[in-house]
């Protein structure tokens, strides 16, 4: 890639959990995202998508540590910043929207107050200006009657509206990178479509970048320009949406994508076997035990390499 990436993750390793439940959740994941790119991360449950995203913002749960790796944002190594330097990046340069909006909003403050507070912290403006900005953002995210709704508490919002408010809060300082982790799971289909449109339109208009995490490829296909496929804490394939979805290279991507192609009534494809027990370390390819092409060579871990221009895969057979 000729461009300087906006964000680059190199060989990220995350360990999380206590004692016997301690797992190697992220195992050397590497990713790049350029300006104006919208990167979707897909993968089965437990593949390390959320922990990778949280590592970028250094918001891992208490039992989690980044064991190894580097994360560069606009050339800066995020992992070497102090906590206070990091707090100026969070919300201002990089924001995150989680799945469960109801839990992410503070029940004790009005929605307007919470958005205004983020803006005031980063932009240092007057309370009055910040409140006006909050209303502007609520309006921009499609909340009807925003002047009145800004005074509402989160529990007075429906799931779809709370998710919009959370997006308004994430976007209020026009971040360069928005991370959305399953932002529409649990929302009704028509609302899901509206929220995805909102995220996509805003990212395009503000020329920023997006990381969208979902295990639904339909959601990714709707919004993203690029896709990364994760499995058991590693990135097995990255490329443009068309390349990965239409001509996947890794056998895992192929198997996963097949699960979504329902052509009619009858038996459905699935991936036989189990995901590896993440408590242990493995030498070889993580997918090999479930892979129909596995051979001796797969006892060595394949590295992510550029198989075709801008289309990367970690598999010995590509």
């Amino acid at each position, binding site marked *: 890639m000729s461009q300087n990436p906006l964000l680059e993750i190199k060989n990220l390793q995350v360990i999380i959990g206590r004692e016997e439940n301690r797992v190697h959740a992220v195992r050397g994941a590497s990713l790049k995202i350029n300006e104006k790119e919208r990167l979707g991360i897909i993968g089965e449950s437990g593949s390390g998508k959320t922990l990778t995203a949280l590592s970028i913002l250094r918001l891992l749960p208490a039992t989690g540590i980044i064991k190894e790796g580097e994360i560069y944002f606009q050339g800066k190594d995020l992992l070497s910043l102090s906590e206070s330097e990091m707090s100026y990046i969070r919300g201002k340069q990089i924001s995150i929207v989680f799945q469960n909006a109801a839990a992410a909003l503070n029940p004790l403050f009005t929605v307007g107050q919470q958005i205004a507070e983020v803006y005031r912290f980063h932009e240092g403006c007057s309370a009055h200006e910040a409140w006006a900005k909050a209303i502007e953002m609520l309006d921009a995210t499609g909340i009807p009657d925003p002047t009145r709704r800004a005074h509402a508490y989160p529990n007075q919002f429906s799931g779809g509206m709370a998710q919009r408010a959370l997006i308004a809060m994430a976007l209020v300082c026009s971040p360069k990178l928005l991370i959305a982790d399953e932002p529409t799971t649990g929302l009704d289909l028509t609302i899901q479509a509206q929220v995805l449109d909102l995220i996509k339109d805003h990212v395009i208009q503000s020329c920023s970048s997006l990381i969208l995490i979902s295990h639904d490829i339909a959601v990714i296909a709707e919004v993203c320009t690029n896709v990364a496929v994760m499995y058991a804490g590693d990135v097995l394939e990255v490329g443009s949406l068309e390349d990965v979805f239409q001509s996947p290279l890794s056998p895992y991507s192929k198997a996963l994508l097949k699960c979504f192609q329902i052509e009619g009534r009858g*038996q459905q494809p699935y991936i036989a076997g189990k995901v590896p027990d993440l408590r242990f370390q493995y030498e070889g390819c993580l997918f090999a035990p479930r892979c129909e092409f596995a051979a001796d060579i797969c006892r060595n871990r394949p590295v992510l390499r550029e198989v075709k221009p801008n289309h990367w895969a970690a598999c010995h057979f590509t």
Partner: protein
Amino acid sequence: MQAETPISIEEKPVLEAQSLIKKYRIRQSLTNRITITAVNGISFSVEAGETVALVGESGCGKTTVGKMLLGLLEPDNGIVFFNGLSLTEYKTKLRNEFRRGVQMVFQNPITSFNPMMSIGNTLIDSMRLRDDLSQTEKREEAIRLLQRVGLDPDYAKRRPSEMSGGQLQRVGVARALTTNPKVIFLDEPTSALDMSMRGQIINLLLDIQAELGLVYVLVSHDLRVVRAMAHYMLVIYLGQVMEEGTVEDIIQNPLHPYTKGLLAATLVGHVGETETKQRVRVHGEVLQLPADFHGCNLIQRCPFEKQRCRTELQTLEEVIPGRKVRCWQALDLSK
């Protein structure tokens, strides 16, 4: 002894719902109570070996329909027939037979099990109504069912917390089978599972249906799951059927704007397909409509709204054989 009722599949559907209506009184504010019609005249019938899907968003009345089918809730109007007898007839003498005949698989496998009870005992416990089996036979039956759903007999000893979501949902299916049912109501059976696991549960349910000739009533908001499992579908909005027909017909050629909106949001099929098709977006959120409103329920959300939609009663009409739609514009267009 288990008294089997004579079934004559050729003449009568196994399950039939006729114009079901259910209203709830809900509190809107401290002083104000209003009546909402959660289910507003829903009818369908299903024959042995067939699946009907109820599709629609949160609050449209799917679970309420299910509860009426299971006899857990009395309809305000309308009748449910199981094997040709109305549920009120079962109430009196054949109660247990009906309870054995209609079973359910729940949406969330984790909360639908007693965390203190082993899987084996859970299955044995749900054989309470099987007075044809001795205790030993019940134990054997539990093991047989575990194997049938693809689990090792060893799992009988486990607690729900020691199993994955996908394994628990297999137990959920086994539990529904303990009473030898004819009908299983599947309330979002795969929504808590990821896509690969989803395929396995779908396959299991399809196998069991083919083997036992079961009727499935499937509730799902995922049109891909509906496409994989169902023959016939009803698209429901605010308690009313907006469109119904065979699954493939509706997916290939949706007529109602609401169905189009749902399909555009699901992207059934291949990547890039929606790019070429026209995308229909349903605006805003579900509205609480006033009791005296007689127009189309999709009012203020429909991208094709006209004046007539606000004032005119919309009826569900057959456009082409086997296909019904509740939208005058869709009817006009197809003429």
